[in-house]
């Protein structure tokens, strides 16, 4: 009985154990299948994902290339600084959104906590400076030039400063301070949009990456930037680096050698500053020094200027507002290439050339009355003084206006006057374009203006754009102006009426004004300089260049930047020489004689042309466009003083100062040290040694 029960019991238990065994085998098989799926089937996918979690890409920024002057002296160089950066992503994950960390950081750095918070907010609509224009996923530099002690305080107490780092970075330094600031440009962090737009850049940019925003820094950004290096670092789950898995060393950017001469640039800056002082109402000035034969830029000045060093390490709200403010004179804007001004009589070189091409004899005699009737309206010489019968030579030297009024008027009449022919010749406009006016010179600087050559076509286009507004004003008048000045309101209303009906018409007065560089004619100082350079040398209009040569940091040349020719004056050598000779007499006997009293003409003879352009409601724009020496000229120097007054008294003295510096003369014509050796510009770019210094 007992044995039976025992046998049955054993059978029961063994049956149950069989169930257990089946269960165990099933579960083991399940594990095996799942392991096969995870490790064999999906293995490669996990390898990829694991590499992503296990490594960090660290971009090692390349050292940005320097910008040197024509003799190898730095215009922009690098210096190292300790920069404190904040990882906004990490702060955002903290319960208080990083407030405590920022407050502690503000304490260490000695800045107000509010400024800390402002500097790391993203720029966008409704967010004023300071703000962060770069990628939100990159560490944001919050303070530059911190002391070693401050950096150590942060680095040694990382538990108090999570997401805050301090590291050595290279920043730009501008030894010339405000000189040539607009030419050199500045750097700003790359924005997220720029990163998104330029595919492939995301890898090449780190959080501290900057892009050239203006000037040479912007135009030659690709060459100056170099190629950043890459370090793939293995990290543990706390982000602590365990070792370097892969490393690609950065390649330093190329050095840009420019044709700017730092000494001449300083001379220009000083001359412009003095010109501003001489003319109390002046609101800006520009100076251009070209190597007349090559078209390279030796100096390009614009005042007011600013110190580009303020961009380094983040710009404050006050500083930024000041850069853009009307009151400070918009120091960011280079008047030399972006400023458009009526050229006044400096434009007459183009008008004379137009007359020659239109059949006026080179050696003819021209009447210069005090006043010339254009239609029913008298156009006067300067101060209404008649100068008798003149050659074109004297007309330029004495700056007679009425000869050009007459020529312009006659050309206009031949084109059909108020009812133009189907095909108009417009010799003045054509010649102006041949001189390079009305189109960009193509200099290697961004944001250049084209100027304006107002011909019949331009008038018609303007009318198309403004007709509606003019016609409305012709009906409603100017009630707001009428409150203070009823006479002017009445005039404006009549003008609007006229513009509404016949604004498309290129009238006799427009043609006359055009001939002396007045009215709607606008040029940039650089355009004028290239035009004069073409006139006094080989007749070729060049697209000037600031950049001269790109070299590797070890001095090996990469490429020389050529100066392209963009046009040719339709004048033969004899005609060019005739005009040049006329201009050569202006500083000694003509409108600039006052400014050049005491200049040693026997040593260096200077030629040029003054310009005094009337601007409605403002002081005149003063110009002096010059070249030297008159025999086989090397330099073209143009100075422009906005609201400066007379060209002869406001602009010409600035040009004289520049020549005094270049050739080495004192105010009273004695020898002094010349900033350019032997008064000649460098003909070859400087050779740099392997350590980057000048041989």
């Amino acid at each position, binding site marked *: *009985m007992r044995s039976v*029960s025992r046998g*049955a*019991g*054993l059978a*029961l*238990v*063994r049956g*149950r*154990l069989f*169930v*257990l*065994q089946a*269960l*165990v*085998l099933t*579960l*083991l098989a*399940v*594990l*095996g299948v*799942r*392991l*096969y799926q*995870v*490790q*064999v089937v*999906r*293995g*490669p*996918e*996990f*390898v990829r*994902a*694991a*590499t992503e*979690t*296990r490594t960090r890409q660290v971009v090692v920024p390349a050292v940005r290339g320097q910008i040197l002057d024509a003799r190898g002296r730095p215009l922009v160089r690098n210096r190292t600084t300790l920069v404190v950066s904040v990882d906004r992503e990490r702060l955002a994950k903290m319960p208080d959104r990083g407030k405590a960390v920022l407050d502690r950081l503000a304490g260490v750095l000695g800045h107000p906590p509010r400024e800390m918070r402002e500097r790391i907010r993203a720029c966008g609509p409704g967010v004023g400076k300071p703000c962060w224009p770069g990628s939100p996923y990159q560490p944001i530099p919050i303070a530059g030039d911190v002391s070693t002690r401050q950096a150590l305080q942060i680095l040694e107490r990382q538990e108090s400063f999570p997401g805050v780092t301090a590291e050595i970075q290279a920043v730009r330094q501008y030894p010339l301070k405000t000189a040539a600031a607009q030419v050199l440009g500045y750097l700003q962090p790359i924005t997220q949009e720029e990163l998104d737009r330029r595919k492939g850049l995301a890898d090449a940019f780190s959080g501290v990456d900057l892009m050239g925003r203006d000037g040479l820094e912007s135009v030659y950004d690709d060459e100056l930037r170099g190629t950043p290096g890459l370090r793939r670092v*293995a*990290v*543990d*789950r706390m982000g602590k680096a*365990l070792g370097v898995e892969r490393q690609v060393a950065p390649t330093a950017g190329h050095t840009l050698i420019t044709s700017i001469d730092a000494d001449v640039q300083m001379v220009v800056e000083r001359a412009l500053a003095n010109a501003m002082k001489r003319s109390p109402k002046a609101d800006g000035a520009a100076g251009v020094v070209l190597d007349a034969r090559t078209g390279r830029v030796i100096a390009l000045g614009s005042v007011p200027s600013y110190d580009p060093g303020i961009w380094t390490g983040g710009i404050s709200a006050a500083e930024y507002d000041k850069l853009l403010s009307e009151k400070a004179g918009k120091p960011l804007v280079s008047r030399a290439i972006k400023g458009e001004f009526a050229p006044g009589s400096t434009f007459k070189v183009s008008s004379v050339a137009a007359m020659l091409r239109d059949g006026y004899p080179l050696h003819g005699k021209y009447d210069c009355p005090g006043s010339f009737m254009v239609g029913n309206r008298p156009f006067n010489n300067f101060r209404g003084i008649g100068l008798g019968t003149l050659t074109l030579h004297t007309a330029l030297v004495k700056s007679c206006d009425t000869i050009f009024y007459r020529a312009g008027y006659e050309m206009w009449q031949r084109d059909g006057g108020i009812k133009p022919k189907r095909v108009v010749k417009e010799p003045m406009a054509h010649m102006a374009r041949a001189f390079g006016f009305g189109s960009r010179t193509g200099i290697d600087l961004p944001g250049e203006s084209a100027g304006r050559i107002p011909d019949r076509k331009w008038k018609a286009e303007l009318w198309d754009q403004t007709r509606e507004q003019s016609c409305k004003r012709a009906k409603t008048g100017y009630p707001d102006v009428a409150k203070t000045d009823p006479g002017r309101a009445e005039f404006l209303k009549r003008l609007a009426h006229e513009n509404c009906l016949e604004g498309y018409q290129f009238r006799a007065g427009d043609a006359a004004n055009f001939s002396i560089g007045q009215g709607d004619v606008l040029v940039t100082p650089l355009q004028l300089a290239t035009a004069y350079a073409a006139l006094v040398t080989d007749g070729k209009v060049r697209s000037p260049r600031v950049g001269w040569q790109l070299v590797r940091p070890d001095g090996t040349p990469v490429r020389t930047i050529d100066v392209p020719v963009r046009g040719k004056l339709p004048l033969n050598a004899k005609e060019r020489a005739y005009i040049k000779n006329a201009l050569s007499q202006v500083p000694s006997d003509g409108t600039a004689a006052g400014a050049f009293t005491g200049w040693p003409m026997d040593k260096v003879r200077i030629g040029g042309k003054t310009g005094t352009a009337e601007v409605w409601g403002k002081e005149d724009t003063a110009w002096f466009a010059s070249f030297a020496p008159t025999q086989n000229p090397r330099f073209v120097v143009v100075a422009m003083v906005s609201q400066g007054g007379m060209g002869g008294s406001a602009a010409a003295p600035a040009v004289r100062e520049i020549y005094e510096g270049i050739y080495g003369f004192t105010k009273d014509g004695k020898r002094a040290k010349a900033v350019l050796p032997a008064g000649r510009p460098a003909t070859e770019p400087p050779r740099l040694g392997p350590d980057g210094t000048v041989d």
Partner: protein
Amino acid sequence: MSSMDRALSVRGDSLARRTVGASSALWRMDGVLLVAVVALCVIGTLLVWSSTRTWAPGSTGLVKKHMLNVLIGAGLLAGAAMVDYRWLRAYAPVIYLLSLAGLVLVITPVGSTINGSHSWILLGGGFAVQPSEFAKLGLVLLLAMLLAQPAEGTIRPRTLDVVLGLLATALAMGLVMLQPDLGTTMVLGVIAAGALLIGGVRKRWIGLLALLTLAGAAAVWFLELLEPYQVARFTAFLNPSTDPRGVGYNSTQSLLAIGSGQVFGKGLFEGGQTTGRFVPEQHTDFIFTVAGEEFGFLGSTAVVALLGVVLLRGIGIARRCEDRFGTLVAGMIVCWFGFQAFINVGMTIGMMPITGLPLPFVSYGGTATFANMAAVGVLQAIHAREQRL
């Protein structure tokens, strides 16, 4: 007749019938089982070394401690193998009560909290014990003792014994739940389930109990008796990608580590995820991820296969044992190891919820190693005495 009396009476006649010398028991051990356990211990030591060596430069402190633990465990194994397991039957209630006392002691201020579980008693000198590990062994012995004797004239256990066993299980589970240690609680439940299965309790009763367990689990769930972190860990495995940095972090990282091992693994000490310590608790509960990453599919299936050998040898010992107490003990130990191994490996490969259970013989952890090795020793003791000459 009380249970104790019955146990002693059985002891009387069995011991008289067949006595095996203590030292000869060592020679009669199941060699395959022993080799599998030793292999797992060796692999475990290597994995513990690999996962802890980057804690500090030249850090070998933990792996040395682990080796010491394994050696002590080996001693316990040998000791348990030499003991006549029927003697254990006599002392089962005492062992059970002692382990209960340990569990109670943990709840008192004597206990300490490590990793959120109040499961430890610190002994000083860097040593600590986890009484819940011994509770498993205590419960195995008690349940085997209760269910080994069928009711008069039947082949099934007496209802009273079953109820007593369930009460003892519930008591142990309740105490462990107070720590709280969800994983060990479930192991205890599985041990009891194994006892009912192997003990020959009627299927309908087992079905009813299973339903009751399900209802109880549902009640625990809906009455929100679990800590929020336990719920989160439990559910995160279903969809770790929803919160890869939060509760899903462990699942995500352990899958990454194992998956990136591919077929052949990256080699010992070469696992980047292991070196970077991306998987938390890598030397204890997640030790299998190291095997997966550094030894690949071949190595990880080898570990699973070795565990399979241990389990199947255990079932074999249970089947061959003529006395129901030995069968029950061996069967429950198999349930214990099997459940723990499956849950542990399963959680590292995203099949099972994350519960703090170590992988038997492989994970770092002194008390668990001692309890596991002692349990293997008991298996060997049963094996030694089932062989007839």
